[in-house]
């Protein structure tokens, strides 16, 4: 046995070139590789993730939230919840971050070509979808109809507000925005006050030649998939990306396991058909 590969746990250094606030607790960071050689050779596919680190605060897993068609940088959107994400939120333009990746599998873009796509996102779950949405919109003619349904607790909690405005104005995709039906909910006229399943019930999206790509809080994914199945959707046409606690991203540390599946290697992108065969522990 030879020790041929190098230290897999040593990240590349990237520099924050832009930061913006999405919601009061979520920020998006744009970063560029310090080593131009690494940056030039860096490729990834929509759906993959990375291990990001703030030196001194540790590492955490986030998807790459921009599309591979938008080259020269990577973006991640992060909710401030604990030590590492707190440290990340303190960073500003010019600050250094560690990045390992890309890891994991990706959305089956080739299989999606020529098909109708329906994106269903909830809260910060729009981040991995955004990578694919950007990718699809950048190569729009390869796809049939594109629809986006996006929901959050309230309007303030919408991420990517800038892009949502672009999607609204564009004829490239249909857009349906929704906020939770909670007491005293205030929102714009073009935003529905509803959970997603009733919206699907109304729309009755036809599964013929169409794929749903969904990501959001686990409970939302469960209700959305249940509703779609009720509407006659085959489980293999529903694609989602799973968020499990991860550490190594390399299929070693055992954190991300669901049954014999390594989410960091075999996923994070799965069809609902695959997910249904897992032990119910995600």
């Amino acid at each position: 046995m030879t020790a041929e590969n190098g230290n897999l746990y040593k990240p590349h250094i990237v520099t924050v070139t832009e930061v913006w606030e999405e919601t009061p607790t979520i920020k998006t960071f744009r970063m560029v590789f310090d080593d131009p050689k690494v940056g030039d050779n860096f490729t990834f596919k929509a759906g993959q993730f990375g291990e990001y680190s703030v030196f001194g605060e540790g590492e955490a897993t986030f998807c790459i939230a921009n599309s591979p068609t938008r080259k020269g940088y990577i973006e991640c959107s992060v909710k401030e919840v604990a030590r590492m994400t707190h440290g990340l939120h303190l960073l500003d333009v010019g600050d250094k971050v560690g990045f390992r990746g890309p890891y994991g599998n990706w959305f089956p873009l080739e299989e999606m070509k020529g098909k109708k796509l329906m994106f269903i996102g909830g809260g910060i779950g729009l981040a991995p979808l955004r990578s694919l949405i950007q990718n699809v919109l950048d190569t729009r003619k390869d796809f049939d109809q594109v629809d986006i349904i996006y929901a959050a607790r309230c309007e303030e909690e919408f991420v990517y507000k800038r892009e949502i405005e672009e999607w609204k104005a564009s004829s490239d995709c249909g857009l349906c925005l929704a906020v939770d039906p909670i007491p005293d909910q205030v929102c714009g006229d073009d935003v529905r006050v509803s959970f997603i399943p009733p919206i699907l019930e109304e729309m009755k999206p036809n599964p013929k030649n169409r794929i749903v790509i969904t990501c959001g809080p686990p409970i939302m994914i469960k209700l959305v998939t249940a509703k779609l199945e009720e509407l006659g959707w085959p489980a293999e046409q529903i694609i989602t990306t799973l968020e499990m606690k991860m550490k190594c991203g390399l299929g070693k540390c055992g954190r991300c396991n669901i049954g014999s599946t390594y989410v960091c290697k075999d996923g994070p992108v799965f069809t609902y058909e695959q997910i249904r065969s897992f032990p119910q522990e995600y």
Partner: protein
Amino acid sequence: MKMQKLSEDDIRAGLDKLSRETVVYAPMEQEGRLDFRKMEKGGEVELGARKTIMSAKKLFLPQAEELFSFKAGKHSVEMIDPPKDEEPLVLFACRPCEMRALEIMDKVFNWDYADFQWNERRARATIIVFACLEPLTETCFCNSLGIDSSRSDGADAIIYTTAEGFFARAHSEKGKKALKVFVGKDEEAPEFTTRDFPEKFNTDLQEKMMENFESPTWKEIAPACIGCGICTFVCPTCHCFDIQDEGGRRVRLWDYCTGADFTLMLAHQPRPTQYRRYRQKVMHKYSYYPTRFGEILCTGCGRCIDQCPQNIDFREVLKKCNRLAPAETGGEE
């Protein structure tokens, strides 16, 4: 077969010499605790039938291991590789179950991505195993799982203990080299076989466990488990880890799946109750790992039985798992 015949004195004299030339880890007692320790000055190596508290895993996957250190300024980061252990290392008198454990873990550390740190330590080590011709202690059950403890083909050398002294045989060049420091003549050795252990366990549990994932019996498998993680720390095959930053260093630390933190996320806990975490531990060893890598992630060393503060006997756990039956009512609460 001819083997190198050694007396206890030959072994002690050889070890003495070896430990002056290279780093030797061997079972030694300190404050009543038998563990693999570095032979420096003094200290007597245990050659008899006693089991170390910790497994030899720690020499290949240290409990806390620096992956690199860093100096982070406002607009600069410098990453520094940890000092390299370049000296070869001899692991002396570990048991066949320990060797099996390393071979089993070689798989996870080398599928797809090769784990540099693990492989480097494996490559650096010369492993000399002491065979077990009968259970070393009463909690041993390697043989009950089908492991032949009279051999250890993956080890660099093997030593047999008999009433007339020791017989040593090298399996590799590294082993040959290490055995050279021991004097002693080649003699015809008897044939060594392991006396069968009292119990045999069916370990073909992959499907049974998957089919009965929802069985309420899981709640009765180890209800006393308090999730302390001791079983994992002493286990030769548990390898799950965490990565954290500690004072300018990024370190990899042992972690344990019976603890609640293992999968806890911000607003989501995939394994909210203790029996689910224990089920993960058992199924990782006897279902998921075999499915993925073709080997049971357990060698029957019995350390988890020796050390569990709740007296959970993993042999009983295995027997209960063999009796898993489908849920009558189904579903988990």
